């Protein structure tokens, strides 16, 4: 998780950074599950690693087209 978080900050390619953030929140949701909070884990998995990654990609695509 730490490796992925550092990758998300320092990597040059934005696509890789977005995927790394998605993996970070996926691992965070696994950690919530291990700490006996399944409700929070579901929210994190669905919104953090699913929907927000997709929104990031849409926005990245739009910025690339605008350039």
């Amino acid at each position, binding site marked *: 998780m730490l490796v992925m978080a550092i990758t998300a900050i320092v990597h040059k390619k934005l696509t890789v950074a977005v995927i790394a953030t998605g993996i970070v929140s996926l691992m965070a949701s696994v950690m919530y599950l291990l700490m006996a909070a399944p409700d929070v884990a579901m929210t994190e998995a*669905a919104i953090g690693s699913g929907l927000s990654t997709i929104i990031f990609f849409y926005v990245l695509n739009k910025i690339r087209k605008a350039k």
Partner: protein
Amino acid sequence: MIRNFFILIILAGLAAVFVSLFWNFGSSDTLSPLAEHYANNGADEVGAPNLVTSVIVTYRGLDTLGEVTILFLVAAIVSFFLKTGKQEESAPKRESSEIILTASKLLMPIVMVMGIYVFINGHLTPGGGFQGGAIVASSFVLMLMANPRFEINHRIIAIVESVSGMAFVFIGVLGILLAGGFLDNKILPLGNYGEIFSAGAIPIIYSLVGLKVGSEISNILSNFQGVQMKKCND
């Protein structure tokens, strides 16, 4: 140079503020009085096996209403700024790959049923309106990814969203009239502990929240998709 110095000073100040917080932090072995009340009386008063849901929907129902309102505002602002207007005929776009097409046809209904299950069973199993709504919205994402020209019917989404929001507030007001206060779940009989139609109004409220959250998030996503389509045509 002087700017870096200021940044260092601010960082040191923040560290000084937070280090005491960090050293004094320890997980408490006993519950706070409020949490103890919820843990001891929650099952009897609310009748929901999932204690988290009973806190979120009944004891702290007003906070949930606030969260749903914030999400509604976000969806409204996104659709205000990303208003695409009438879509002109788009040039033929590259089709999605066969894998995504087949997988989305296979998975979309399953994911959607999973989301609906999560928010209907919110008072029995982990999960609830927000989680279920997000899962329903992710099934729409799958559909949007597989078929770029797919458009969600905005009118149906708007109707679902506003009707469920109004019904949520209406049930809350019914709670004032028929039971102990705003969003009290005892307007319906509590039923047998652990059955699906139990815990009073919680299944209804959570289903409404799930529908609302799902339609709002799919609305945001389809707005992003619409902007992308427009850019492609230029």
